[in-house]
């Protein structure tokens, strides 16, 4: 698989995590591809943390780049039945457990379910934006990312980069498999049959627990 195929493969598997009616917040990049792969009959309510509930694709008819933007500052739109709220209300909604799932990428994750995705000391200082709040507040935190970075593991025993939030991840979905966070560590529950379990472990610094019900992540 090339990069684009890997991203589409991960997004397609992540889409199966969402249930009809879920309120979902998507991070930038790969997560924004997830709605393209929702199973038939599943419609989710997309929330944008700058204050939109039920975001919709921008068209020539609804475009108003001065007044409606998404969390990345790009032009956005609101769907029929949607609403606009202010930032304090929006983050009350996020921290208050009203968001069913947040899907975001990671630079590093670890076996305690902690995530680092906002800061590379000395190199980049973009800011955490709403990520720290989303991680502690969403009911399900799904990390969707490539399994390794330039061949080096991103799934570690302990994050080395500064944390975005600790012990917050529900599930990690990569092109190699699906891992859930358990009190004993990361459990591989699904795998991509293109790889052997040994290959998946070799690409993972954390020790994987193999689920007794391990199955293929491909339909």
């Amino acid at each position, binding site marked *: 698989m090339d990069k684009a195929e890997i991203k589409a493969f991960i997004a397609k598997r992540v889409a199966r995590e969402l249930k009809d009616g879920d309120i979902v917040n998507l991070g930038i990049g790969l997560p924004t591809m997830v709605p393209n792969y929702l199973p038939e009959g599943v419609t989710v309510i997309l929330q*944008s*943390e*700058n*204050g*939109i509930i039920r975001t919709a694709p921008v068209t020539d008819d609804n475009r*108003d*780049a*001065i*007044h*409606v*933007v998404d969390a*990345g*500052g790009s*032009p*956005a739109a*609101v769907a029929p039945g949607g609403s*606009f*709220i*202010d*930032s*304090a209300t*929006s*983050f*009350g909604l*996020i*921290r208050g457990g009203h968001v069913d799932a947040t899907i975001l990428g990671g630079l590093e994750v670890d076996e305690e379910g*902690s995530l680092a995705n906002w*800061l590379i000391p000395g190199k*980049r*200082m*973009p*800011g*955490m*934006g*709403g*990520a*720290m*709040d989303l991680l*502690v*507040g969403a009911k399900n935190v799904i990390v969707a990312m490539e399994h390794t970075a330039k061949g080096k593991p991103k799934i570690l025993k302990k994050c080395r980069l*500064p*944390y*975005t*939030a*600790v*012990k917050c991840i529900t599930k990690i979905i990569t092109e190699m498999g699906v891992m859930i966070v358990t009190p004993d560590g990361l459990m591989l529950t699904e795998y991509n049959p293109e790889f052997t379990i040994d290959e998946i472990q070799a690409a993972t610094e954390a020790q994987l627990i193999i689920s007794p019900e391990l199955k293929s992540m491909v339909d």
Partner: protein
Amino acid sequence: MPKFITIEEAVKLIPDGATVMFGGFMGCGNAHRFIDALSKSDVKDLTMIANDGVCPGGPMGEEYYGCAKLIHNKQVKKLIASHVGLNPEVAQQSMVDGTLEVQLVPQGSLAEMIRAGGAGLGGVLTPTGVGTIIEESPFCLGKQNIDGRDYLLMKPLHADFAIIGGAKIDKCGNVWYKGSSQNFNIVMATAADVVIAEAEEIVKIGEIAPEDVRTSGIFVDYVVEGGKY
């Protein structure tokens, strides 16, 4: 009742070294005409409290958009924000030139710290940032365990001025916001000594229904008319 003044008069209210909250999110909801005029003034050494540093390119092809103009003109000595990564000049001035101090705060904490500042609360207890370097932030006063969960105690934020960007403002100063431009404007309008609100359009009393008012005119000290952006 608020005073209705010109943008030039409003800019003269801001002294060097003032702490100023700017409502908006990536420029959406910024008081564009006021900020543009401020960026052409000599006012300097501002502490800017804003969600973000906006970005150089605007949606209408502007070279600099919203608050990015003030950063570009080096009028800001300290920036308190949740995200600055889309404006490369922030990294340049803070990490290379060393002329801009940046204090990052999680977005939800920032909103709630401002809300607390405007609502007379002594701080905010939030689970956001527990176990991260936010625990070392000058805004973090410590950790408390409540019913088995850890929370950080974050200080309230208050400013000398808040600069609000509304769509319609009536003669009583009541503000109606369009689209997603409420964002930080709502809390910031409550958390500063002096609130300056820019309207795209100033309207008669009654044109904004009382139930559609999102910032009550009692919070607003000065209104300027910016016109359609």
